[in-house]
């Protein structure tokens, strides 16, 4: 025995050293990658990057990044005092993480705005004024202004802009301003009670803050809010921004990770101590868990450059599976440490371990099929984590398990009892019947819902504030809009101009209430505008001179407003966000639609060939969720049929009845996992399908181990029990997560795996016949 041990000592040592070098390298890589990567926490980024439309994804991402950077506040001062508003504006400006603050339009701004609008009044001719010119009614409109005692028209204005084009387009623009107005130089809106709220909006320097940074920013903002309340106790302030949601999500996830991770490790430690009566197995298990986590982390960070918060939370569950390999080996040593060398134990187990690795491996690989970045991350994390833990067990354990206490008869009575319990036919029938009853009850109440919005619990306080902001400003945050895009800015603008009349028509048909669009005409349009003014101005001017009004004849300077000039000018204020030009020249503009009444008619306006597309990400994702849920359920059905066929084939020598019985643990575990949804009123969605895949992949192990002819039923059962307990410990703890999606995932897994474990002895009975 000693010989056998020393014979292989060299190989073992070489292998161990090699793995040590790799692990050290991986740890360094993990450290380096971790400090340089960001943690992503947006639910949308969990979703497929794959586009269902042909809108260039850089454009959509560009807009998305920009939206992520926006922060909005509404302030309601007491007695309309502007001091707190101004203080907030100034204080924000001082913050290093904010790149610009808006909402205050001082005299200089208004002057610049007016000058720009005047300088380019011909180019900027709005559609209404253009219509009036062409229908020869502009003159009577000018007269109505002249005769109105409150128009404030001066001789200077008449002289410089006799057609009153600047005035006309400004008035028409005001008519389309939506819920927001400029009051006392501040952007403001009124709520239903008539209170004046002032809006201040800011942009963050960067959208890609890591968890610590965004937490720091949120805290800093909280602090200055505190200061505001101290200075002016009755001032109300509302906030909105992706930052606040993502910070909330990260801190929730952080709590989740800490709680779930700690509890599952504590649980595993207690379990190991009570079975092994030694510290060494704990250290060994923790070692393989640690190596597994580091390997998974490095793989994810290398492949994706970032890690999603959901991945981190779900990855804690991988602990339960990685520890299985340690447990299988340690159990073997626990029971047979006196009869065989550590190397012999490894040799005996290696095929079973590999089999176990493979089944989990395959289950996780199936997860890769769904095009969801979050799940891909989880799969990669799990696959590499499992490999890391597996290699730790086979490379290091044989050298480290010396002096492990041996307890040959541990739990023998209990395990025997359990096995005997399952030998009774009536009990088998009763258990299966009970399970069937539970499944039946659950399935009746099963509901399907693919709405992704329900997968994330949003903090109610933030949501209330957001609702209030929407009701005051009448600007929704639905992210439902048309995107108009083109290869050049000019193409985009021309497409926009062709599209707007259709949109106006849809608006007057009552399909929606309002839309918002940029105020930049295309080069072509600007030239047309100049031509229109040229054509129609002479007769208006002569009519005016008959009335005794002398005016300077218009001079038509031909300079054109480019997208760049527009973006730099005051004119683009408040609409800049709707325009995006990429380095390639590709450009796009968004048209947010408010007050949607008839979505199917609106959708019909999409003309993807013409660069116009109705973007409703949530709706698109829901459709995709449905598609993949159905897709995966077909895949699962196929897999289950295949697995059952294998079981039947494998057990065929024991008779048809026994063969059929061998499929029961798998079928029942799936059934219970599904039924659990109905029982606790959780809806069935894509995540449930993904959990089901793992239920099958992991649950099948138990049947496999117990039906393995080569190992003793008792020792196999002990290892399986430990494995199931640790897995349930880690997945079961996902139930306490704050995120509904994760909670559901944990619940399905726990109930499924528990059922698989519970009914696994059904298969072992075949073996003993």
């Amino acid at each position: 025995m000693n010989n056998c041990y020393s014979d292989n000592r060299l190989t073992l040592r070489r292998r161990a050293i090699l793995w040590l070098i790799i692990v050290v390298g991986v740890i360094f890589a993990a450290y380096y990658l971790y400090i340089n990567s960001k943690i992503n926490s947006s639910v949308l980024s969990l979703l497929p990057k794959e586009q269902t439309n042909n809108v260039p994804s850089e454009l959509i991402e560009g807009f998305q990044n920009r939206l992520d950077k926006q922060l909005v506040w509404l302030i309601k001062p007491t007695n309309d005092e502007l001091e707190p508003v101004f203080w907030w504006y100034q204080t924000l400006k001082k913050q290093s993480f904010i790149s610009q603050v808006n909402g205050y339009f001082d005299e200089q701004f208004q002057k610049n705005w007016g000058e720009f609008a005047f300088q380019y009044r011909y180019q900027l001719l709005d559609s209404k004024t253009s219509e009036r010119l062409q229908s020869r009614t502009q003159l009577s409109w000018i007269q109505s202004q002249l005769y109105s005692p409150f128009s404030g028209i001066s001789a200077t204005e008449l002289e410089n802009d006799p057609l009153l084009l600047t005035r006309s387009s400004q008035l028409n623009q005001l008519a389309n301003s939506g819920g927001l107005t400029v009051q006392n130089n501040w952007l403001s809106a009124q709520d239903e009670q008539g209170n004046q709220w002032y809006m201040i909006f800011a942009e963050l320097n960067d959208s890609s803050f890591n968890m610590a940074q965004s937490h720091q920013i949120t805290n800093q903002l909280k602090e200055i809010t505190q200061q505001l309340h101290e200075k002016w106790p009755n001032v109300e302030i509302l906030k909105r921004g992706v930052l606040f949601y993502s910070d909330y999500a990260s801190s929730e996830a952080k709590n989740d990770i800490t709680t779930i991770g700690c509890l599952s490790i504590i649980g595993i430690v207690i379990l190991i101590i009570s079975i092994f009566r030694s510290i060494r197995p704990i250290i060994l298990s923790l070692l393989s868990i640690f190596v597994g986590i580091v390997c998974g982390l490095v793989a994810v960070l290398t492949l994706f450059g970032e890690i999603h918060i959901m991945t981190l939370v779900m990855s804690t569950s991988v602990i339960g599976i990685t520890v299985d390999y340690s447990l299988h080996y340690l159990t073997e040593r626990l029971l047979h440490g006196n009869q065989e060398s550590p190397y012999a134990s490894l040799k005996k187990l290696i095929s079973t371990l590999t089999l176990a690795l493979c089944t989990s491996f395959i289950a996780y690989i199936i997860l890769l099929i769904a095009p969801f970045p979050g799940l891909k991350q989880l799969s990669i994390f799990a696959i590499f984590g499992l490999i890391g833990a597996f290699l730790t067990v086979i490379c290091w354990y044989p050298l480290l398990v010396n002096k492990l206490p041996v307890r040959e008869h541990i739990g023998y009575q209990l395990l025997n009892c359990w096995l005997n319990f399952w030998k009774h036919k009536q009990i088998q029938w009763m258990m299966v019947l009970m399970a069937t009853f539970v499944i039946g009850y659950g399935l009746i109440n099963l509901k399907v819902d693919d709405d992704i919005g329900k997968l994330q619990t949003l903090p109610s306080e933030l949501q209330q504030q957001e609702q209030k902001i929407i009701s005051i400003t009448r600007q929704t945050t639905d992210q439902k809009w048309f995107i108009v895009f083109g290869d050049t800015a000019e193409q985009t603008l021309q497409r926009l101009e062709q599209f707007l009349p259709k949109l106006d028509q849809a608006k007057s048909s009552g399909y929606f209430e309002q839309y918002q669009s940029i105020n930049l005409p295309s080069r072509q349009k600007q030239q047309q505008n100049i031509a229109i003014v040229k054509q129609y101005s002479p007769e208006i001017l002569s009519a005016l001179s008959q009335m005794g009004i002398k005016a300077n004849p218009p001079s038509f300077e031909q300079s054109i407003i480019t997208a760049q000039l527009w973006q730099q000018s005051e004119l683009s204020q408040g609409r800049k966000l709707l325009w995006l030009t990429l380095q390639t020249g590709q450009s796009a503009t968004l048209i947010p639609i408010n007050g949607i009444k008839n979505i199917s008619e609106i959708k019909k306006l999409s003309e993807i060939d013409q660069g116009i597309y109705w973007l409703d990400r949530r709706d698109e994702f829901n459709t995709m969720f449905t598609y993949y849920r159905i897709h995966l359920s077909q895949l699962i059905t196929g897999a289950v049929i295949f697995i059952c066929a294998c079981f039947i084939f494998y057990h065929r020598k024991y008779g048809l009845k026994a063969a059929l019985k061998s499929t029961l643990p798998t079928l029942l575990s799936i059934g219970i996992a599904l039924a659990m949804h109905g029982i606790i009123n959780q809806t069935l969605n894509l995540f449930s399908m993904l959990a089901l895949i793992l239920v099958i992949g992991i649950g099948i192990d138990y049947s496999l181990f117990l039906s393995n002819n080569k190992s003793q039923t008792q020792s196999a059962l002990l290892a399986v029990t430990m494995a199931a307990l640790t897995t349930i410990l880690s997945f079961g703890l996902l139930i306490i997560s704050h995120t509904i999606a994760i909670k559901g995932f944990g619940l399905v897994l726990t109930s499924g795996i528990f059922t698989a474990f519970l009914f696994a002895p059904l298969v072992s009975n075949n073996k003993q016949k």
Partner: protein
Amino acid sequence: MKKKLVILASILLLTFSTLSNAITLNDLQLLFSKNQVIRADFTQDRYINGLTSPIHSTGKMIISKELGLWWQQKTPFAMTLKMNQQRMEQRIEGQAAEVITAEKQPQLFQFNHLLTAIFTADIKILETNFAITIAEQNKQWTVTLQPKLAPLNKIFKSIVLNGKSYLETVTINDMQNDKTELTFTNHKTAKLSQDEQLLFR
């Protein structure tokens, strides 16, 4: 901003029957709410610097506390304005009406809302927006409103109301030293006839 016509209409409700030496804003508010309906003819002259002659127009108007304002310019061309708390409509003869509603165009409508504050002598809003001086001489009273906030103070220097038993003249002094003079005559306070009610539709 033609919508500011409403201010006139509102001011016409200043129908003081008895006058004391020290009229307060509270008195004003009481007096404002006295008549349900007022009709009058108006003539308007706008003096704009640089123009050889004043711009002259005439017409008539009705204010109903219930239905709002109806203002019709008859010469030199026809133009009608209707206005209530929710909507405003202006029509130049032979053209489609321009409609502005409180819900859809708050920025434009807000201004008018402010002016209806004069209509009801809403002391809070008036005091926020104007510096008010009230004077009386030989039973002829004068109210001067000086705008305090933007955008009113960018356009108007002062608005002066003058009258005896009814509002008789309104003088609007623009910031550019232009001036508008409105004269109201032929005041009547009888109930609205059915035809008149239809005008507000």
